[in-house]
């Protein structure tokens, strides 16, 4: 996985179409959603993200690693959104709203939620089919009895599936620590 990521980052730096297709697939929805939380209009949010990705592409910006790319994109979205909010009508209620959104906590919490979702999604999709369904229900907050009922299994079967799933997830999620350890500054 490491090697592929390096190659992909290089291709991005060269402005290769396929690499950018992948970039959109990975980030477009998350960045769009983040922008939406600032500007509260989907069309505006999408324009902002498209402009940022367009600039990245034409300037052929190069990134050392995945984290720095991610940080750059999130920061760009935030600053562009705040610019737009500042240009909006300067009325009293907008002032308060702007303050709240300028607060870095607002931004970081959105970022955190999105990242969490991505991690969960990655983890869950790495599970084999029957286990995947069980964990999706776990994520939805269902307890063992509810899951057993929905999937027509015994509660014991659910428990043992969960145990198996957790073991796999333990291994899979470990991979993420490696990434962070190697890529953090």
């Amino acid at each position, binding site marked *: 996985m490491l090697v592929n990521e390096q190659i992909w980052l290089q291709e991005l730096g060269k402005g290769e179409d396929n690499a950018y297709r992948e970039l*959109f697939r990975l980030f477009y*929805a998350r960045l769009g959603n983040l922008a939406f939380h600032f500007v509260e209009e989907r069309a505006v949010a999408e324009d902002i993200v498209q402009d940022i990705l367009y600039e990245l592409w*034409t300037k052929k910006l190069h990134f050392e690693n995945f984290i720095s790319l991610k940080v750059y994109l999130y920061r760009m979205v935030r600053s562009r959104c705040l610019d737009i909010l500042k240009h909006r009508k300067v009325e009293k209620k907008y002032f308060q709203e702007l303050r709240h959104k300028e607060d*870095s906590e607002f931004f*970081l919490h959105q970022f955190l939620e999105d*990242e969490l979702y991505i991690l969960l999604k990655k983890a869950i999709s790495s599970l084999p089919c029957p286990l995947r369904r069980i964990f999706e229900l776990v994520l939805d*907050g269902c307890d063992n009895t509810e899951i057993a009922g929905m999937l027509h299994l015994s509660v014991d079967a659910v428990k043992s599936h969960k145990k198996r799933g957790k073991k796999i997830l333990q291994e899979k999620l470990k991979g993420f620590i490696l990434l962070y350890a190697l890529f953090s500054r």
Partner: protein
Amino acid sequence: MEIEQADRIAYLLSRHITDTLSSEEHTELERWLALDIKNQELWRKVCRRGFYSEKEMLQYLYDDEAAFRKVQIRCHRRLFRERMFRWGGMAAVIVVVVGVSLLWMCLSRSVELPGDDRVQLTAGESQAILILGHGQRIELNCQVKDSIIPGTQVRLNISGEVIDYRQESAGSSEMDFNIVEVPRKGEYRLILSDGTKVWLNSESRLKFPVAFYGRERRVYLEGEAYFEVSENKDMPFIVDMSKAAVKVLGTSFNARAYPDESCIYATLAEGRILLDAGGQNLVLQPQEQGVLELVSGKMTCKKVDVTLYSGWKDGRFIFQEQTLENMMNTLSRWYDIQIFFESEAVRRMTFSGNLKRYDSFNKIIELLEMTGMAHFKINGKTILISE
């Protein structure tokens, strides 16, 4: 908290939610929680039931493929322009023309979906029936036709998806009406003789004069259509939907009046319209929707995201927190299918999403089933939806 730390916390939270935290990680998470009450609020939010599936559905609101294509075109255009400046002269122009057509060829490559052992429920397409003044019916599929309508000065041009009425010169005073009927699984576009553009959705019918005379431009609609009305301050444009009418000067809006639905809707994109129903009327501003409830006669107005109601004309179905029942009302007309719900609860399930209108219904079922909330059983053209 910096981005890198946020990343770390997201990782710890994912461990917690999947119940795979190590004891050191557990301590680290506890420490973060104790730091700030806002952290605890965030914790409660992400551990809440439904957090994951809500986020799942938001993904579908953003079409990364369409966005990529849009940006790709912008980039390629810019690269061509840069190259052209470097070359200069006539030769450069030819390069650009050739480059652009090659680009279009690449972009129109379609992606093959893996085989499905279920029956393919294909999307609708341009099809309609044109009924002329004297009753003659013409089926419009991929026809091309260009002629003057007898008795008028209006030229009729049909080309596959659009019927274009062009007033050649001020002519007779006869009010000849035509009707365009769009069946289930169909859609069609018209350009009326005053230049007004109309998009007709499935199971809809528009009756309109071939040429506009007199003090108003009145058309009759049953079903759903999107209008871009050309401006004419002297002749207001009126969409008559029997129980209600929309009066316009020049603007873009969506009108919906299906006989099997309990409400009439008018959604305004740009301009100003007046929604009129017997005694009541309502002036709409852009991004507003007026609703007339037929049973109670009540008229209300609310602010909306217009793309949710007009996305269909641009090839998309856009839903935001829509009940499955409402979604299926819309989809069943386009795909010409019958839907049955196993229970009330299923009817009331809500979804958000941005779907391609030209995708098969099977693809849409795939996306909906991925949320794990509903299950679809196909039997020919009948669909049964259960939890």
